């Protein structure tokens, strides 16, 4: 393997690379003779700086698509919490208002961050219907409904970011940002679940983590939890492995790993709340 083979490999992955490197194409092609006169050691640096030029200014479409997908979900969450906080008497005490405010501010920050990253490529905010066509008609007047929808949104967000990580691998910085949002959504999900458990009733056994598939007691959000009951990871059935007392339980096996959700599945869930 040498540098020229590496360049060939790059061409295989990115057929447009020469177009993007256009002004420097001659330099790339001319490396073999160029190398004899200039210190070989300087070549990777030159190529590195070319890539920086090639990708520094514009984000590839694949990544724009992921970021806009994320932005749409963040718009959804941000507006949801904004409306919840604005609905008089919905959130019953100062502690809960404090927690929802923390979450709302993070969602606002995610919107702002993604819009900045996307610049003119950012999609606009859709018009939302948080009742999902009447399914959650009392979402801003019944606190338990509000928390149930929040629960579904946060768990969806976690699954959505996880599902897109692979498509961001070519850009370390953007991948890292996405992961840094992803874990914040998981913290939100954990807290909303605790808030629901504290309310008692149907959610009194709810845990901060997802047990099996849909453990929320709200059957309307089944699609949010499709596949969460998976207990096989990278070919290993987790329940066949040794736990503390005997094998690892099915509950622990499903709780210990959050599952990803495809963009299509997430958009289908989101579409229930998007009017246009």
């Amino acid at each position, binding site marked *: *393997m*040498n540098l020229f083979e590496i360049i060939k490999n790059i061409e295989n992955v990115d057929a447009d690379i020469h177009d993007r490197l256009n002004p420097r194409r001659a330099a790339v092609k001319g490396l073999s003779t160029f190398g004899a006169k200039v210190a070989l*050691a300087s070549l*990777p640096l030159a190529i590195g700086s070319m890539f920086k030029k090639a990708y520094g200014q514009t984000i590839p479409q694949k990544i724009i698509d992921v970021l806009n997908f994320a932005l749409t979900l963040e718009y959804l969450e941000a507006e949801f919490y904004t409306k919840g906080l604005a609905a008089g008497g919905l959130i019953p005490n100062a502690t809960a208002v404090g927690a929802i405010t923390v979450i709302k501010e*993070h969602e606002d*920050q995610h919107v702002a961050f993604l819009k900045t990253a996307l610049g003119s490529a950012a999609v606009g905010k859709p018009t939302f219907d948080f009742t999902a066509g009447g399914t959650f008609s009392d979402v801003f007047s019944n606190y338990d409904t509000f928390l149930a929808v929040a629960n579904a949104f946060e768990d969806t967000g976690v699954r959505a970011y996880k599902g897109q990580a692979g498509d961001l691998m070519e850009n370390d910085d953007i991948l890292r940002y996405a*992961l840094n949002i992803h874990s914040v959504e998981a913290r939100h999900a954990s*807290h909303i679940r605790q808030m629901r458990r504290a309310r008692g009733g149907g959610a009194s056994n709810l845990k901060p983590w997802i047990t099996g598939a849909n453990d929320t007691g709200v059957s309307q959000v089944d699609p949010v939890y499709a596949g969460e009951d998976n207990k096989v990871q990278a070919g290993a059935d987790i329940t066949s492995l040794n736990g503390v007392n005997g094998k*690892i339980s099915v509950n622990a096996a499903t709780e210990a790993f959050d599952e990803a959700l495809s963009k299509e599945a997430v958009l289908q869930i989101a579409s229930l709340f998007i009017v246009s």
Partner: protein
Amino acid sequence: MLVVCLSKQLEILNQLFMNDHYLKEKEGLYSTENLQTSLKRRSFLKYAGASMAIGAIAMAGCNKDDDNSPGMDEGVYLGKGDIAILNYAYALEQLEAAFYTKVAEAPYSGISDLEKSLLTDIRDHEVAHREFFKAALQANAISDLEVDFSSVNFGSREQVLATAKVFEDLGVSAYNGAGQLIEKGEYLLLAGKIVSVEARHAALIRDLIQNGSFAGSDVVDMNGLEKSLSPTKVLTAAAPFIKTKINARDLPTY
């Protein structure tokens, strides 16, 4: 064809590599591993990596002896590339599992049924993570690490939860920081499946300490982004709790 050993070239390059964040990120500037990491940050090797292993670059035309540095071969060797990252995660899961196993065995005084149940759940998750990595790594798995919790009073709720908070926040930032170093999409997805569960733990532990502190400004910045920590920084932070010496010589980091 390049005739000269490429890793030698890369060493020379290190000295020429005088721009942006690379130099700021200190430590071991003159090692091949660091340069590879640096190049990778530029998306360069990411492309090359689509059809070849990163390690192959350094290996091409090189004598294996070139990689040997005196005093660097002690301790449990994590391996290279993705294997090293998985072993790194395995080491952290071993640490967490050992911690919660002790917590569950001898709960702190005054523990509520709810707290006991939640902390036992977390133990089971960390054990599941540990056993999963062990099974996935097979022969490449590092040995069992010896941990050191002598600084923790397990009878004290305050100390147990404070230590748990450190481990969980560290775990999340460790997975967040390792993501960009992973080569295979499958492993990145697995790390993603685990990190959000660690974040759920972290939020709960924080709420047990102080309700509402689930995503405090000490872990989430003004952009709503959680921290990432490089493997080097994470291992340094975890070192006081791990007796076994870990050889992270070939662990990708930045």
